């Protein structure tokens, strides 16, 4: 299994529009990220929830997918991007995953609300490569914490009792 620092970041993209999904997927792949693209907040939560199931069981660690960042459209039928943001931030297991919101509408109150309620960035559509370049610091922050945490992480991965933390570079509380 690849050492954490060298492995590609995995981004979960959420957008109900086929073209925009294709576009964001291409932008992310061009930036060397691994991508899973889904068409709704519900499917996004299923994908993330599936990770938890794998994690909680003593299943082979190599099966699970670690989502490093979620990028979601704001305007979607059913669960909006904001709804998804709130569900993620209110989940003990998912709340530390950085979330970025995209929207075709430039509405300051909407943007502020998203940023205040946990979104790391808000991109206006159409999303550009220059926007995707802004994601790296958020991803690096989650991965490159002080060495002491890395050492602990390596120990945790090796531990046989299946209690590794969700983000292996966090301090266990």
């Amino acid at each position: 299994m690849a050492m954490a620092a060298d492995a590609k970041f995995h981004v979960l993209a959420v957008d109900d529009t086929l073209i925009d999904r294709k576009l964001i997927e291409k932008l992310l792949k061009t930036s060397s990220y691994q991508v899973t693209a889904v068409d709704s907040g519900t499917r996004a939560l299923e994908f993330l929830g599936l990770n938890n199931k794998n994690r909680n069981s003593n299943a082979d660690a190599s099966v699970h997918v670690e989502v490093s960042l979620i990028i979601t459209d704001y305007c979607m039928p059913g669960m909006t991007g904001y709804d998804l943001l709130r569900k993620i931030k209110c989940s003990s297991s998912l709340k530390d995953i950085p979330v970025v919101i995209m929207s075709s509408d430039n509405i300051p109150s909407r943007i502020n609300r998203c940023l205040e309620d946990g979104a790391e960035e808000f991109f206006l559509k159409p999303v550009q490569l220059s926007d995707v370049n802004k994601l790296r610091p958020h991803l690096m922050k989650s991965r490159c914490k002080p060495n002491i945490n890395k050492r602990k992480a390596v120990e945790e991965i090796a531990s046989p009792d299946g209690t590794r933390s969700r983000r292996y570079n966090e301090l266990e509380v």
Partner: protein
Amino acid sequence: MNQMAIAALKNQYKSFVQSMFDEGVLDNQFSQLQDLQDSSNPNFVDEVITLFCNDAERIITEMNRYLNYQNVDFSKLDSHVHQLKGSSSSIGAHRLKLACVNLRQASYERNKEECVEAFNSIRHEYCLLRSKFQFLMQIERRIVALENNQQ
């Protein structure tokens, strides 16, 4: 000889795209898409164009349906225009996007007559765009055919 033909076709492609920029039919977003096309995904632009056209036609058909009712459901109409505006923006279809903005405004004002006018404008812009895209894709295919012949 093939090399010259390929070069000529590539120039034709480039000039035609430039004319679309000059006319405001396309904007810089289309260049972004072209820049994203690479050897790992050599048909990217074609694929996006195809997805866009299928989507646009579906939406235009729906909007036409809503506008044919005695009592127009402006809210449903608006959500469709919003979708088309978004897709237009994503592919760089500048004039079509502007036509969508007009329809959104008319829909917001609940003015059926203006909605119909704005919708006709959308349909016109879309048809224009589609025929130009088809022309581009034809050139592209000829280039690919010639390049394959060379191998």
